[in-house]
């Protein structure tokens, strides 16, 4: 590991640069021979940026690299074997062979394949360093193609406003894949970052001495000021974006080859270059030889859910409290802020006096200064920021004000946070909690009323919970913040916030709670049930009302099963019920198509062939959610719809 703020001399720069070039040429050769799959993004022509930057960084610093990451990985770690093995898909690869060219992790190093996708996490890691009182910094490397990504500006804004030690290095190679910058970039690059009041620096890979000096300067500046800095390094990619897909002007490319410092070094000083080339070649050949004998990549140990079909035991009763849900959540967050210093609350409008759109965080920012933070309206950035904090050992709880806005956070949750553990090994543990209210029935209209959780179900490595009116919402957070080991979405519910937990179980039905970590509740009738009614989250009150009406008015007995953990999904509680009833009716507030209900029916059907005799789904109408209350009540599934469909299920259409 290099020591920080070191200015490498010319020899060292060229040694590193030639090693990178040798490795990447070998990777292209292996690709030609069919020894690599996927893709290879080389940085041939840009190597000196990585070679100059890495020595300026210290052990506690982090490099967050983009898809074109090989050079930065080598500069940061010197691990030729790990890189070659990674691209060859071997278990000895830096990420176990699972990540490939674009997704490489090592202590103090992350790379990922979505443009700008890791920037919020980089800001989160920078915040973690700041909160820990260290003077370590995060260097986030991007390409000029990333200038089109909104999340870059969300991140720059937060980094500037919160004064985060984040060095953004923009490798400006003039092309986004094959598209010339002139086609897509308006204005100029530096004034973008300048608009956020961020310090600006510029260098290029042709004047390597100035570049090395500048790298040491910018890292020192970020370290000393604790503030972000935007550093543009002009450069040129000599090879194709990935493999042979090069439509650039050949004369232009030729000109840059001639200008390239490493090419000139080899041409003008062959005697000096020879030993460096020989050393590089030897390391590369050894790495390839070693990788060829190593075993293939292995599946991630976490991919199988141990509780997927685990039977559970039940105890009578559910949660009971005269307090409103929002107050219980507030108390639970307070309790956890007090209990564990790593807990942080991040979200829009969550500070006092406002306390969040649904008042869940009311008063907490005053009690825990600095640990409950208002953010700009930047759902993607704050979710990724949370992921970065979590990767650094904090327990961030991000509030997304409306569940609909989870769509804005989806890239950060699905493409980034969910993959850390897989891509980056043990350092990728991401105890990130994202709280968000889903559900309608408040007249908020099409973009503030949806139940979008199905889009977050089935992302390996994540957990999705849904609060309901029969389970202690505070205890969920106690458990979660103590046991969390992966990015988690907690689906809250707008109507639930105001509800109290004081309704007795419907008369004649037994309320039971499972012993699962995130318990399932069920209502069992005293008598043989005709069907199993499955629901979750905000649908529970409607399902309970339907269960009562079905008995009172329609002579049908339902067994109601309501899990808290939607993903990974344990089929056991519902399967157990269907074994008794033979009929499964799934009800959910979101869209039915390819949603949890379908999944549950499929799981029950495939888990126990022959048990399921009839099944039905009920969900929102295929329609955006209207604001007008009468219409909204028709679009969203309510008790009366459940009753109607349940009768059809039992008695036939």
């Amino acid at each position: 590991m290099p020591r920080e703020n070191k200015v490498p001399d010319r020899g060292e720069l060229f040694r590193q640069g030639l090693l990178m070039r040798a490795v990447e040429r070998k990777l292209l050769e292996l690709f030609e021979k069919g020894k690599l799959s996927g893709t290879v993004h080389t940085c041939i022509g840009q190597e000196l940026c990585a070679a100059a930057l890495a020595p300026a960084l210290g052990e506690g610093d982090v490099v967050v690299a983009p898809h074109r990451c090989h050079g930065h990985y080598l500069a940061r770690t010197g691990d030729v074997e790990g890189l070659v093995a990674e691209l060859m898909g071997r278990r000895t690869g830096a990420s176990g062979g699972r990540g490939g060219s674009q997704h490489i992790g090592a202590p103090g190093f992350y790379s990922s394949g979505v443009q700008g996708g890791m920037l919020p996490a980089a800001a989160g890691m920078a915040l973690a360093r700041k909160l820990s009182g260290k003077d370590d910094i995060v260097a986030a490397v991007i390409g000029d193609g990333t200038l089109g990504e909104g999340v870059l500006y969300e991140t720059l804004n937060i980094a500037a406003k919160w004064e985060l030690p984040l060095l953004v290095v923009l490798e400006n190679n003039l092309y986004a894949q094959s598209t010339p910058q002139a086609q897509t970039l308006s204005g100029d690059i530096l004034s973008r970052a300048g608009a956020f009041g961020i310090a600006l620096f510029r260098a290029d890979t042709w004047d390597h001495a100035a570049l090395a000096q500048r790298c040491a300067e910018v890292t020192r500046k970020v370290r000393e000021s604790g503030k972000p800095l935007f550093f543009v390094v002009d450069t040129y990619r000599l090879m194709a974006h990935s493999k042979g897909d090069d439509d650039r002007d050949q004369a232009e490319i030729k000109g840059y080859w001639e200008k390239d410092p490493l090419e000139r070094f080899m041409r003008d000083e062959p005697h000096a270059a020879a030993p460096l080339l020989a050393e590089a070649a030897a390391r590369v050949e050894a790495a390839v030889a070693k990788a060829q004998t190593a075993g293939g990549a292995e599946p991630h140990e976490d991919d199988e859910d141990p509780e997927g079909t685990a039977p559970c035991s039940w105890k009578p009763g559910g949660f009971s409290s005269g307090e409103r849900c929002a107050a219980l959540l507030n108390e639970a967050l307070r309790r956890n802020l007090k209990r564990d210093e790593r807990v942080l609350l991040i979200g829009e409008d969550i500070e006092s006096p406002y306390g969040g759109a649904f008042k869940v965080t009311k008063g907490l920012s005053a009690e825990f200064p600095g640990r409950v933070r208002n953010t700009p309206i930047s759902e993607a950035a704050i979710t990724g920021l949370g992921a970065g904090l979590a990767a650094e050992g904090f327990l961030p709880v991000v509030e997304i004000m409306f569940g609909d806005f989870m769509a804005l956070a989806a890239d950060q949750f699905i493409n980034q946070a969910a993959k850390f553990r897989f891509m980056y090994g043990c350092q990728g543990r991401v105890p990130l909690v994202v709280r968000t209210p889903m559900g309608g029935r408040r007249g908020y209209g099409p973009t503030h009323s949806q139940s979008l959780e199905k889009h977050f179900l089935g992302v390996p490595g994540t957990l999705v919970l849904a609060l309901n009116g029969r389970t202690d919402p505070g205890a969920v957070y106690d458990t979660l913040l103590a046991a969390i080991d992966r990015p988690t979405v907690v689906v809250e519910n707008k109507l639930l916030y105001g509800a109290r937990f004081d309704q007795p179980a419907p008369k004649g039905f037994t309320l039971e709670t499972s012993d699962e970590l995130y318990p399932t509740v069920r209502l069992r009738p005293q008598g043989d049930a005709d069907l199993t009614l499955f629901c979750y989250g905000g649908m529970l009150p409607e399902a309970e009302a339907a269960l009562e009406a079905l008995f009172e008015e329609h002579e049908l007995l339902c067994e109601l099963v309501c899990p808290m953990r939607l993903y990974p999904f344990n089929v056991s509680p519902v399967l157990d019920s269907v074994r008794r009833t033979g009929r499964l009716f799934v009800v959910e507030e979101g869209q039915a198509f390819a949603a949890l209900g379908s999944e549950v029916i499929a799981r029950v059907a495939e888990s126990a062939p022959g048990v399921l005799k009839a099944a039905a789904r009920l969900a929102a109408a295929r329609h955006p959610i209207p604001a007008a209350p009468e219409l909204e009540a028709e679009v969203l599934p309510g008790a009366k719809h459940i009753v109607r469909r349940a009768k059809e299920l039992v008695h036939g259409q």
Partner: protein
Amino acid sequence: MANEPVTVFIPREAVNDLTVRLSAWRAGDKEKVEAGQVIAEIETSKAVLELRAPAAGFLRRSLREGSDVPVGSPLCFINQGAEDPVPEIEAETAAPAADGLAARLSRKAAELVKQHAIPLERFVGKGLIREADVLALLGQSPHGPDLAAGVSAKSVTFKRQALPKSKLAEARYLLSGSNSLASSVSVACPTRGLRAAAARHPEWGGSPAAAIVFEAARLLREHPVFNAFHEDGAVNYYDEVNAGFAVDAGQGLKVPVIRDADKKDLGAIAREIQDLLLAYTNGEIGLEAQSGGTFTVTDLSGEGVLCFQPLINQRQSAILGVGAECEGFYRLILAFDHRLSEGRAAARFLRDLRDQLAAYEGGKP
């Protein structure tokens, strides 16, 4: 300003009572009443009270006499206009059991229970009760012929009168596994006269049954409590006497009904019984023929049974059993619903019946 109705509440006169019984209205719906005028009588566990109008106006009432109304809740309204709208008031339908074991009934089950005057105590600890459960209790398959529905109040009219609170309490405490509080008395009836009469009347088919039905039906007019049924704490007296005649001759028990048995002469009844027996043999007794009974006679005299306890049919209060002849006497048994009457009243009925039948010895008819 709209004419807000004045709500008349049930006063808290008897602190021990959760409900009081509306025993009578003293003014009609939409009738003009003066302030202070008596509008209703309510019965507490201790006394009958008169309830006076708190204001002048038009009385608006929807509760039936005999309803139980929670203390402190609305009983009726006094309106400024006779046609002004008023809220609905619901009477207490079922008294909840004191403990949490009270069963919960579906609407249809509750209707059936009410219709058949089944005490809710029968369902204690049984959880959720559906229509099928009640039908099963009544011995009827939910999918078989719905006799209970057939024996409806549609075809037979009756007058309803609330039972006194003491009688209700008795039912609550004494009740055990039946839809009625069954009790029975029996008397011995000399057979000689009936035999002789049967011999004189070949249309009797050799059985005294026609005479027994004939005499019992007439007596029921003097003993209306046995031509009645219990429902929801009230006795309901039938306006007609329709005698069911139980027949079981190898094709299952059927109870064809002899309508207006108290108005028919003995010959007509005898012929009707012979027709019914023929119809039974031909399998022609359907639901229609079995519906509308208000009292039942079951004759097991041909079976050599001396004495038995017949089961009271749904929505009836008594059944007359006829045992076999022994040493010159038939045994007559009256099973009756103790919620409506007592052994002494039943004994009086049987004694009267015996006296009527004994008179056949003198050559009657």
